[in-house]
């Protein structure tokens, strides 16, 4: 299913990849197209996925949903191992191989996360993070139909995640197809709290999702530990200001989505 989505996305991108300068600037040159896909995804979620996920949550006990989550993460875990090796993280790959073996055997095909209890913690690696490790630039921000937020650099992950998922090697579509559907529903159910947070708190859901997604990807690429310099730069506002009053429409200050080194308004610098 993800392979078909990739083909659809490629066609849509080629059809509408004229670069337009939305307010997203450097990180989101295809913003008009992305916004259309975002609206499509929200509509599809509201009328299809959300009702299905809510029903799933009501009828499926939490321990069972948790077991399914562990199972689907486990069958996809070879993808993490492959990317560990591609990034040269050999010690981590050994740990992840151990985790996969323990959970697949003692953990009953991954239904139970036994590996966590013996110190084999889960890691998150994908092809996008591998490409980042190799120095490939992030590329434009993307919103893919059905898939959601992504970046051009991360799109190979869609194909790699299918190729490395053990679920697609059972040799039986009769067995794989319902599992794939269950995977999608279970994933949507797990995302319920996050999506509700966005709905409740976002002032601009599109900008919220884009900013949060890109920042979180950067966090994962740095192994869950941002460099101090990155955190320092988060506090520095853009240097330039717009040339007129703020309402109703304003020219976009340069580098709106990138902080620059500069002077930060004083938060009161007197000593404690």
């Amino acid at each position: 299913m993800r392979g078909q989505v990739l083909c659809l996305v490629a066609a849509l991108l080629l059809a509408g990849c004229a670069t337009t300068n939305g307010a997203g600037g450097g990180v989101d040159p295809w913003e008009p197209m992305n916004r259309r896909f975002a609206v499509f995804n929200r509509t599809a979620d509201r009328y299809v996925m959300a009702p299905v996920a809510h029903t799933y949550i009501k009828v499926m006990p939490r321990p069972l949903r948790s077991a399914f989550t562990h199972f689907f993460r486990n069958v996809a875990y070879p993808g993490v191992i492959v990317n560990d090796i591609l990034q040269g993280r050999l010690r981590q790959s050994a740990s992840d191989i151990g985790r996969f073996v323990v959970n697949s055997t003692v953990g009953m095909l991954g239904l139970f996360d036994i590996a966590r209890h013996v110190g084999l913690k889960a890691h998150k690696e994908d092809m996008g993070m591998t490409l980042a490790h190799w120095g490939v630039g992030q590329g434009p921000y993307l919103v893919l139909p059905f898939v959601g937020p992504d970046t051009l650099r991360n799109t190979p992950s869609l194909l790699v995640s299918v190729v490395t998922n053990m679920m697609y090697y059972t040799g039986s579509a009769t067995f794989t197809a319902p599992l794939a559907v269950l995977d999608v529903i279970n994933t949507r159910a797990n995302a319920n709290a996050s999506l509700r947070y966005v709905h409740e708190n976002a002032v601009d859901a599109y900008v919220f999702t884009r900013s949060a997604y890109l920042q979180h990807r950067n966090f994962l690429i740095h192994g869950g530990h941002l460099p101090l310099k990155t955190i320092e730069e988060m506090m520095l506002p853009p240097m330039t200001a717009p040339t007129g009053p703020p309402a109703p429409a304003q020219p976009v200050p340069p580098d709106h989505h990138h902080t620059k080194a500069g002077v930060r308004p004083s938060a009161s610098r007197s000593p404690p």
Partner: protein
Amino acid sequence: MRFAGSVIKTKAAVVGRRGVASRIGVLVCALGLGIGTAPAYATSTQPAVAVVAHFQQTLITVMKKAPELGFKGRYRVLSPAVLASHNLKFIAQITMGPYWQHLSAASKAAFVAVFTQLTVATYATQFDGYSGEVFKETGAHVLAQGDVLVETTLSADGQTKAVLDYLLAPSGSQWKIINIVANGVSDLALKRAQYTEVIRNKGFPALLATLKKKVAQLSRPSKAS
């Protein structure tokens, strides 16, 4: 273990640099040369760590009593705690990006007021139950501007659920939170990106109205759980 080790090494390096810088600073000041050095007020991370620890303890207390307090009770308890630990006026200013300087004093005051309400209401909504969560400090650093970064984790069932980094800066005689980075996502950057987008497309009055609507939505009786 690797993470803890890197934090310890970083802390040792920062303390070493600050110790030397402080001695040079004293000498330079004594000589009246006034050459810039590392900020003298950031001599210890402990006061900032204490602010975060106290605030997180308040969150845990509220979470444990969440059902009996309800939204209004949580808001009432959290409001002074948030005001005491966060520099909300400064945060509000930063979220407006370059548009802040174009606002009148009345508009600035109105924005800070609704931003404060929204911040407390968000905390009261999000921390609405307890399942054995534990906050743990994992490190503290002095940053280049003299601010302090306090690193913590939020865990439950022995698993780390979130990495929460707090940035604090001095405000008068106290250290106050000016940004929270949750799993790599800066709350300040998130708000700034959204608010400036709304101002650019719809204007400041529309932003103010949207934030007031958000506060009202969060405060609805269905949220009083």
